[in-house]
């Protein structure tokens, strides 16, 4: 391998670790050689290659989750220097050192930085975030979508279920059943689709039951934290409007 390390320059990491889902978290410090254009993942890979703490003692390599390495899969979300974000797009040159890595504790911690985001996928199932087109015969082409609508709907489709919005939300916690911003925005996306629209009431009903949209407390951290710049608070307000209309329609029997 080509020599890319810069003499004497190092990167410090303070990582919150946890051996099992129920065990107590603890922190360990690492100091690794600096290379140009490192991101947090390449730092973690370096620790994996040579799992020694800053005091020279050996330790188990740090576990993390990652996949696409280009901020589209959402797997490597973690809390980096206090802010939830993707480790792949967190460039070491742009981070203050020591770099503090913690798991997103809103979710169950599996091990070290690995979390279980199952509740988000469960939420997508609950609100039926898909377009049902299956039939026993060819249903033919669906209605067309206006280009202007497609353009803003595309922004919503960038959601990668990474969990950053849930981590930043003060109302997503053990005492609260709030579904979280991501699934609400997906309801807006699928209700905007000309075919998806045909089942819009089912999705609104899901958000109007326990642990639906009502848990939003308008702290608006989600929209500021979303790595994809999805207008989450606009989605929530738009779905608030739709659920309000749906509520009155149901009451009045329209």
């Amino acid at each position, binding site marked *: 391998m080509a020599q890319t390390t810069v003499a004497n320059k190092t990167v410090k990491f303070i990582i919150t670790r946890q051996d099992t889902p129920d065990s107590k978290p603890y922190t360990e410090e690492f100091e690794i050689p600096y290379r140009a254009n490192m991101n947090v993942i390449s730092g973690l890979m370096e620790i994996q290659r040579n799992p020694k703490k800053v005091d020279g003692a050996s330790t188990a390599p740090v576990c993390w989750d990652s996949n696409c390495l280009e901020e589209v899969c959402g797997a490597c979300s973690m809390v980096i220097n206090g802010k939830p974000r993707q480790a792949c797009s967190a460039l070491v040159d742009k981070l203050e050192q020591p770099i503090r890595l913690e798991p997103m504790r809103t979710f169950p911690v599996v091990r070290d930085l690995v979390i279980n985001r199952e509740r988000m996928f469960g939420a997508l199932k609950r609100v039926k975030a898909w377009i049902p087109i299956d039939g026993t015969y060819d249903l033919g082409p669906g209605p067309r979508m206006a280009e202007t609508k497609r353009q803003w709907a595309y922004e919503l489709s960038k959601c990668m279920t990474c969990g950053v919005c849930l981590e930043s939300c003060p109302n997503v916690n053990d005492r609260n059943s709030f579904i979280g911003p991501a699934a609400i925005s997906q309801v807006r996306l699928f209700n905007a689709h000309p075919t998806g629209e045909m089942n819009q009431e089912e999705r609104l009903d899901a958000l109007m039951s326990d642990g639906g949209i009502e848990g939003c407390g308008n*702290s608006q951290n989600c929209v500021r934290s979303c790595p994809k710049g999805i207008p989450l608070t606009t989605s929530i307000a738009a779905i608030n409007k739709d659920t309000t209309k749906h509520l009155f329609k149901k009451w009045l029997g329209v």
Partner: protein
Amino acid sequence: MKGNSYFSRKLHSLLGIIPLGGFIVVHGLTNYQAFERGPEGFEQGVHLINSLPLIPLLEIFGIYLPLLFHGIYGLYVAYQSNSNTGRFQYGRNWAFTAQRVTGVMTFVFVFWHVYQTRMQIYLGNITHEELGSTMNHIASNPVYFVLYVIGVLAAVFHFSNGLWAFLISWGITIGPKAQRISSYICMGVFVILSALFILSLIAFSGDEFKEAASAALAFTNIG
């Protein structure tokens, strides 16, 4: 639909504005008569409210029950929230936490304030005409005055910020621009209502309200 948290939360949001928000505005305007027109003006304001028809029903269904539901369910809402202003120091996140803190403060303050004023009338210790002098007793005590200013600011913040959130929760202000403009309007509401309440507290602490008590008594005796 009934009994689910969507329904309770929506009712909580609605009651905060109608009738409670309406009540706090009317209350502020009535009190302000004390500053604008002195003891007579305030007494007229109290008289005007007491001359409304079906007062006990208005009080029970327009104030007490909505207040109890909004207050008690609100405590539960506050309990369900975390505060992460340390990690996310955005103005809106501060307002989120402040909304819960001022809600609890207002809950305590309203009970205390109702005990000192309306409850004393129920108990027969004072009459409606003596409310001015009761408020003079309270406002001329420096500790009570400060506590009242804090209580009033908490209540007015909770209402103004709650109004902003209400507009979102019911889907009236949707985009960021609409929400920004409504936040300016709500800030204006906060400033104006706070001024009304604080000016009336200052007016209540004046000597004319001490004297007004005896005058009012004389007036009712003649009447």
